[in-house]
Structures are given as C-alpha cells and as structure tokens.
C-alpha cells in the first residue's frame, strides 16, 4: 500500500496587504512593529490554509524571504552581492559573496521561523538552499572556503531547525536539475558528504530541469528521497528509480492554470501502478512565489482535493 504525502515547499507569495505595508515601511510610513504584525498575520493564514487543506506536512511560511539565500547574507562573511537573474526567470536574487570562512550563527533563522504559530501534533518541514545551488549561485575566490562555509552554514541551520521542531528539511537544488548532464558531480558529492553522514532527514527538491541525466547522482546523495519537476521531466523515466521515496512536483507553480484534479489522479495512479514506491510525495514543482497570492492559495486547494481523492 502506497503512502501518499502532500506538502508545499519554498517561498510563499505575499498578499497585496503585506506588499503594501512592506513598501510603506521602506518609505518610512509604517513602523517595524506594523510590518512584523502584518507578517505574522499572513504567516498564520498560510499555516491555517495548509492545515485546512489537510496536507501531510506543514511548511513554515517563508513569506519574509526575499530570495533563497537572503537570510544567509546577514552572516559576517557572506555578503549581499549584485542583483542577478534567477535562472531563466524574470526574478532576481542577491548573489551571495563568500569572502571568508563562516559558520552558522545560532538564532540567525529566528525571524524566519514561525514555530509559535505552527500546529502542534503535525510534522513540520522547512526549506533551505541546496548546497550545490548555494555553491553555484555564489561568488567566491576559493573553492575550499566556499565548500566549508556552505556545509557549515547549512548543517548549522538544519541543527537549529531540528531543535526547533522541524522534522524534515527540504533542500532546493534547481542547479542540479538545470545543469543536468553538465553538473559538476565531484563538487556535488564533496558538498553532500557531511550531510549524508549527519543523519538529518532531508529531501532534495529539483526543478527547472529534467532529472534524467542525474538520477544516479541523486540516488547517491538523497537517501531520504527527492522530488522531480514534472513540467520538465517526463513521468515515464521515473519508473526505474531505485529509491523508497519520490516526490512528484506535479502542481505547476510557474503557471496560473489550475490543474484538473482528475487528470492528476489518473497520472499519479498510473505511475504508482507501474512502480510501487513505499512513499509518493505530491507537491508543487517549485516555490509558489512565482504566482500571485490568490492563485497560490488556489493551487493549495488543488493539492487538497487531490489528497482527498488519492487517500480515498
């Protein structure tokens, strides 16, 4: 019997009210307290929505993340670099510049965790940058320093999150999927070695590319499972993956078109009939931040309907 698990991942979009208060705060027309209150109001809404949708895991609402790396550029030796296009999107991030060795600073993620709002008795999950994507999208002079720093910072963050009650960490790894056959396999393995040995449960989240050329690599570094972006990867090629747990990024977070639930049921059941995984995760292919707030909410409701249908 397959266990279906439903969840969202990554950065969640802000609603019009939060965008507006944030702008007012930038212009000096709202206080820090006004902004903080508004962030917490919306964080609660996003958590409640996931609970109402009866998702298997409740994701921390990353509504105050400006981009995948921004919290880490608050560390002394990781600076905010130039605005840089995020892959092929009309979205830009601040390139992290690793100037020297850096370790995680306890409490760094405090303002990015909403543990007091998260529901008790449910499994919590949290998204962090994948190590290879962090490496590839950063600027640094020395490879060894960059690798050490990224490992230390992410492992430290994972420890902090685990002690705060998050069960699973999702590591966003678009660079591995995007680069495909050109991925720097040695660097990926070097980066993930201490994580594999750490015993932390982490899932890799792959998007913006077809995972077909890197399936072997993924099986080596993601012993707890990984997700694939079905807007790039044909589902048929997943039949031969030798892992216990695989997630299907079947909700398209880069298109406002709402999926037909019955089509999704048919696809997932057809897939399951062929492969018989113990656990199949079902999630959006990437951050819902690529959508307007209301459409992101509607996509969660698609996930909710899908959950009801698949759970029977």
């Amino acid at each position, binding site marked *: 019997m397959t266990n279906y698990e439903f969840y969202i991942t990554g950065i969640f979009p802000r609603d019009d009210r939060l965008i507006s208060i944030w702008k007012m705060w930038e212009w000096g027309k709202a206080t820090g307290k006004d902004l903080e209150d508004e962030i917490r109001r919306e964080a609660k809404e996003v958590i409640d929505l996931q609970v109402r949708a009866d998702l298997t895991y409740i994701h921390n609402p990353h509504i105050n993340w*400006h981009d995948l790396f921004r919290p880490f550029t608050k560390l002394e030796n990781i600076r905010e670099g130039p605005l840089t296009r995020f892959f092929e999107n009309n*979205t830009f991030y601040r390139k992290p510049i690793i100037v020297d060795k850096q370790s995680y600073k306890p409490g760094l993620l405090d303002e990015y965790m909403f543990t007091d709002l998260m529901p008790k008795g449910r499994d919590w999950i949290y998204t962090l940058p994948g190590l290879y994507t962090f490496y590839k999208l950063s600027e640094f002079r020395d490879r060894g320093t960059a690798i050490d720093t990224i490992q230390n910072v992410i492992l430290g963050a994972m420890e902090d999150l685990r002690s705060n009650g998050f069960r699973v960490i999702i590591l966003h790894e678009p660079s591995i999927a995007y680069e495909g056959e050109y991925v720097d396999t040695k660097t990926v393995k070097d980066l993930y070695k201490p994580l594999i040995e750490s015993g932390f449960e982490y899932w890799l989240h792959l998007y913006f590319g077809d995972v077909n050329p890197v399936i072997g690599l993924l099986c080596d570094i993601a012993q707890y499972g990984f997700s694939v972006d079905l807007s790039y990867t044909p589902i048929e090629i997943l039949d031969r993956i030798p892992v216990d747990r695989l997630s299907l990024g079947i909700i398209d977070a880069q298109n406002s078109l709402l999926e037909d639930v019955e089509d999704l049921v048919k696809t997932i059941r057809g897939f399951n009939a062929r492969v018989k995984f113990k656990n199949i995760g079902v999630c959006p292919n990437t951050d819902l931040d690529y959508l307007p707030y209301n459409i992101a909410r509607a996509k969660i409701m698609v996930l909710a309907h899908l959950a009801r249908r698949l759970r029977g």
Partner: protein
Amino acid sequence: MKLPILPTQEIGSIRKPDYLFDVWKKYFAGKASEEELNKCIKKASIETIKMLEDVGLDIVWDGEMHRWEMYYHPISYIQGIEFVGQVRILDNRYFVKGAVKSIPKLVKNYHLEEYLFIRENARKPVKIPITGPYTIADWSFNEFYIKKWMRFEKDPKIVRYNAKRELVIDIAKNVINPILKDLSKYEVFRIQIDEPAATTHPNEMDIFVEAFNEAVKDIKATITTHICYSNYDLLLPYIHELKTKQLTLEFANRDSWRRGIDDEARRGYSLLKKLKEYGYDKELGLGVIDVHTNEIEPVELIVDRIKYALKYIEPDKLFINPDCGLRTRAREIARKKLANMVEAVKIVRRELGYGE
C-alpha cells in the same frame, strides 16, 4: 532627419514626477478620472521631453509618461491576456502579471496617440520604444497554449516549447505587427523594440528571432532593438538573421569604473570583440551609464568607454545611451547622468574632428 556622429539617446523610462505617480495610483484606486490622469500625463510628457532635449540628447521621447510600465501598458490593450495579480521581481518589488486565456488580439494601437503627442511636442527626432512579442509572452502565464498542447503531446519540454512558440508568434502577428504598420504611416523616425527577455532562455532563441522578424515584416520604419541584463553570447549566432538596424545593449553594469581603454579596465565591453568576430556590421547602441547606481559616471570614464568601443565599431555605426531606462533613479540623478554622457560625446566628437 540627419543625426550627428555618435548620436545620443535615452533607452526607455524616466522616473515619473510625484504628481503623475500619485494620480496613476489614484486612477487605479478609482479616485481619479481618466481626464485627470491624461492631463497629468501630458504635463509630465512635455516636461520630460524638454528635460531630455535640454540635456542635449539627439533622439528623444517622453520616458514612458503615458504608460504605467512597459508590461502593464500593452496588456491593458490586448484581448486574450488578463491580469491575474502581483508577482515578485525582486525583494518587495512586484509587477501585475497577466495570464493568456485565449488567442491574443489587439484592441487598439496603444502607441499611436502617445507617439503623435510626443512628436508634436518634440523639437528633436523621436524614437518610440515598444515592448516586443517575446517579452510580452515570457512575462505572462501561458495558460491557453499550454492547455492546447497538452492535448497533443506528452513530453513536457515539447509542450512548453510549442506553446511558447505559438503564443509569441501570435503576439507578433496579431498585436505588434499591426501597431508597427500603423505607426509607419506616420513617418515615425525610429521604433525601438524592447526585448529584455530575449536572451534569458537558451533553448528559445530561435523563437525570439522568428517572432521578431514576423513582427517587423513589411515595416518601412527604422527598427532598433534593446536587450539588457542577460547572456548576450546567446544572441551572437543570430545577429545577422535578426531584422533590426541597431542592437542597443547594456554594458556599463558589467564594467569597472577604472579609467583606461585597455581590456581589463573596460571588461564590461568584452562583447564588442565578439561582435566584431561575428562580423557584426549594424548600428550599436552602447550602454555607458549604469542605471542601478546613484553615482554619476565621470565624463572621463564615459569618454574611455566610447573610445574603447570605437576600436570595434565604426563611428558612423555607434550610438551612445544609458544601459537601460533610468526610471529607477531620481529625475535629477538621471538628468546629471545624461548630461555627463552628452558632454563625453562632445569631447569624443571633437577628438574625431567632427566638432560638437
């Protein structure tokens, strides 16, 4: 109209004066009438044209005063694309994104009145920037064509490619080409097709070029193209195929502020060497002003950037401009940056023996 050697131009947007920004916001909130908005647009348009003429640019326009922004404006006049909400570009900056619900069709030539107004109020030759078909498509959610292609094809990559291609070509044929044809009747001096998304998807360069050429098909006016903040190497194999008279590109953002005309000092301009290797012989709009910093480029630095470019581009093919629209800067900063650009061009013209 004859232009001097090394003609100077602005790229696109200039920051709106506060009174215009406020009335746009009120208009969206239903608290200002169209008449009030138009009155402020005209005032700001005239002020901006005058500012650009006074600063000494050779080719002018009004810095987008008639438009809220370069994506919102066309979508407002295209049937088949509906606004669905705010989507983040960076930090807490958002744009209102549209979703393609049916085949895009032009409701009205949304540039004609704007162009006629600017032409009437400008003393210098006018260039009109128009958002191109590829960028309109790329910045929209492609619902209609994805749904259509999902019926015929299983491979998601093929679905996405075919859906994108069909959307871009339809916008080129149904929206942009009719606008260009219409404007051509009014002897527009130059039309700049803005395609900031053009070189962001390596696998879709052929779509961009095909759509661009479709958009400008049978157009008599002079067509130029502006592309920025992306990987220009992707463009190189297509530079001859693209039916444009000028590529207007961003360079200063990639460059150092060190003086000199050696390769290291002018590392932001390394593309010029590649263009020459590829036999590029069209006009080049050279970005010499970084639009993302308030620091004003010294005249001497701009002179160096122009002189470096002259190693690779013939003077009669070189146009001088900022990297992109200056709307991210305060108007006074924009004015000062443009003034230094004009001053630098005068120096180079004199050195080349063309007077000012």
